[in-house]
């Protein structure tokens, strides 16, 4: 069907047809450029917006006439994403090549200057590396903790048993909480004077109040615990979905075949949850790289818990060094992209292998 429709002649470059998206794009860019240069922001915004809409419309007409259903279906999502996400991202990418502080009126192009400064400056480079190692530590620890906890919880709930539905929702609750409440309440739980943790330990040992957050190990443990507690249910849900999708008869066959529990897990269960584990890993890793809220609420970055994302907030928000913050974020983004691509590559290779 598509092939027949696609034979409709494509209009010449300069032909003013409603489906000539190339011409529309050229005209759109030109008009927008003039508008941005000549008119105040409020007006040029709407003109540019209208041009984008025009180009989009010509795309749609073009796609419709030639039955590019894929393009048609995808276009609303791409439009929203472009306006609300990709455009601001490109903007800040652009900013990262300038010397710009949001509370100052000057702006100057410095190319890769910000990146160079971050990577080579005597003060900033060690800070960057320290924050990057901390972040990596948090990513590894929180993701492992979440995967393991989530996985074990999923095993617990994989079977049908009485009250399962009600117990499951209890375990799912932490991820529905607001981070602020979690952070504030965990700082209370960890508090040496008022906290439950200190109270319990004191009651058990009869000794001193327990100060969890006074060194790096304790502070990291505290943050990782809170984060893992909050997000393990996410992993659990994905793994559980995999577990319940394993046909029951395979386990029955394994029981008949007297397969050991470990082998059963490895050869029957695991293949069903591998993809989901990968997905959970992907999403949680992305989130873990952005970890800042809990750090701010629990330690303010003290005791060696400063993360790169919190550092970005400090630079870009508190200190208004917008372009430096953007550059730092793009360095972070680079790391995340490399890592996630690695994940996806591995996942795809495995999927193709089996």
């Amino acid at each position, binding site marked *: 069907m598509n092939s027949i429709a696609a034979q409709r002649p494509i209009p010449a470059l300069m032909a003013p047809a409603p489906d000539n998206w190339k011409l529309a794009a050229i005209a759109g860019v030109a008009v927008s450029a003039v508008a941005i240069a000549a008119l105040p922001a409020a007006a040029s915004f709407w003109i540019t917006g209208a041009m984008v809409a025009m180009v989009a419309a010509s795309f749609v007409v073009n796609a419709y006439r030639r039955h590019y259903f894929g393009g048609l279906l995808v276009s609303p999502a791409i439009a929203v994403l472009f306006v609300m996400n990709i455009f601001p991202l490109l903007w800040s990418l652009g900013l990262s090549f300038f010397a710009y502080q949001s509370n100052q*009126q000057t702006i100057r192009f410095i190319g890769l200057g910000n990146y160079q400064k971050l990577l080579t400056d005597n003060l900033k480079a060690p800070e960057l590396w320290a924050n990057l190692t901390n972040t990596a530590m948090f990513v590894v620890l929180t993701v492992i903790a979440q995967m393991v906890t989530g996985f074990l919880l999923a095993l617990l709930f994989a079977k049908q048993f009485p009250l399962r539905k009600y117990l499951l929702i209890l375990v799912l609750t932490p991820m529905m909480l607001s981070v602020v409440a979690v952070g504030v309440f965990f700082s209370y739980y960890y508090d*040496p004077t008022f906290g439950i943790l200190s109270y319990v330990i004191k009651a058990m040992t009869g000794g001193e*109040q327990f100060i969890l957050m006074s060194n790096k190990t304790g502070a990291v443990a505290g943050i990782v615990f809170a984060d893992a507690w909050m997000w393990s249910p996410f992993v659990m849900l994905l793994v559980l979905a995999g577990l319940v999708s394993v046909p029951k008869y395979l386990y029955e066959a394994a029981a008949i075949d007297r397969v050991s529990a470990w082998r059963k897990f490895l050869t029957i269960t695991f293949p069903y949850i591998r993809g989901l584990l990968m997905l959970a890993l992907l999403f949680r890793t992305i989130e873990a790289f952005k970890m800042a809220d809990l750090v701010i609420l629990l330690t303010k970055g*003290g*005791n060696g818990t400063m993360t790169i994302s919190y550092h970005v907030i*400090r630079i870009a*928000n508190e200190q208004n060094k*917008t372009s430096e913050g953007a550059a730092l974020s793009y360095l972070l983004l680079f790391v995340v992209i490399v890592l996630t691509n690695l994940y996806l590559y591995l996942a795809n290779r495995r999927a193709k292998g089996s």
Partner: protein
Amino acid sequence: MTAITKLKGFATAASFATVLMVGGATYAAAEEVVLRMAVPDWPPTRIMKKFFDEQYKPPSGNKVTLDVDFIPWPDFYTRVNASLTSGEQKYNMSVSDSQWLGAFVEGGYFRKVNDIIDADPALKATMAEIHPAFYNAYSTYPYTSSNIYGFPQFPDVLVTYARKDVICNDEEQAAFKAKYNEKLPCTGEELDNMDWGTFQKVGEFFMRKKGDKLAGQVLDDDFYGIAYQAGKGYDFSSMQINGFIWQYGANIWDETKIPDGQAEGVVNSPLAVKALDHYLSLLKYMPPVAKTGTMDIFKSDELFREGKLAMNIDWIGLGEASLDPKTSKVSDKLVFGMTPGLRGADGKLIRWNNLGGQPFVLMTWNTDLQNKEAMDFVKWWLSPAIQNQFAAGGGQSAVKSVYTDPKYVTYRPWNRAWAASLDWQKDVWHVPQFFELLTQQQDQFDLAITGKQDAKTTLDNIAKFQQDLLKNAGLIK
């Protein structure tokens, strides 16, 4: 959004109605003016808004609305900063921490108001009534220059909060006397006279374990003598450490001496190291949360309100909660005094502290009419009558005729320490680099507080960082 367009828009009908209602007697067309103001959400600003709505009558006869955006404290900076720096031009006025002045003045957001004040002798007189410490900290940028930007919204200083029932207890008094051959301060005056040495003894003396006796009662939980801020967040250690540094005769980087004032050699002077060591040496008498770097002004206040402390040094701004039985277990047992000082060789107390509180400011994009109305409001706000009401309702006043009024000390128990404290208040930097300076300094102080680094290294690191940063910024020659 000029007032004219407003008028054109929908105000025509409204003002027409107003004119009708007043019977057409007032000739001057009452214009509608909206002043949008960003403020932190807490009693001092709520009171201001309440007074405005209930009492304020613009002398111009215009219809002035104060449209206040109450923003919870923890997000206040983020929200205001994003609004200002994005060029949103949403607010006409804002409360600002005094230290933010530089960043936002240099960014072109806060309006210099000298011209308006100069044109208004009455206002000028009002400004002259403001205590110099607050005038310099809240109004001027650069610090102590003649450029005027802000006006006191809620002026604040540190005071000593103390538990009467504990420190005035006869047994404790006797035991303290026996142990240190010194009277345990009990009254406000005795607290005023306390030096750091006594403060330390109080800390040592009142460190009690669960099961020990305190003022004749068996404790069901550990108890501590003293606390002050030692947190990593925002300025929650610098504000106390600065006081120590000044009392020792050392200094922070002095922005009034730009461009000759140095950071290296000043910030890390031997006296400053001694001062910081003194500050650190008291931490061991404080509740264990001090070791985590999270004992900020709120945490020490909470410990005090929960009855875990004999004394706490904190801002007056947090005081209302201590007096309220709904939020405080010690509401009926309080006594307040000035913060301790350093006993000099001559036996006199050397006192210096970092002041707190917030001014409010006008924005550069305001219309003339908005500025005029805003300044009328400022004049009204700083008028003794309103300031007195404000103080009576739980605010503080930096206006001399108000805080010297004998009534003033009756408003709140800490007010007796107020007027006497004002003369020895200074403020930290106001330069645009404020946040960078503060963040690095707080990080370094945190390392010292959590015992990872000694005072000398800490101050050396701070000095080096400040020297580099300020040199690059052209503030140090």
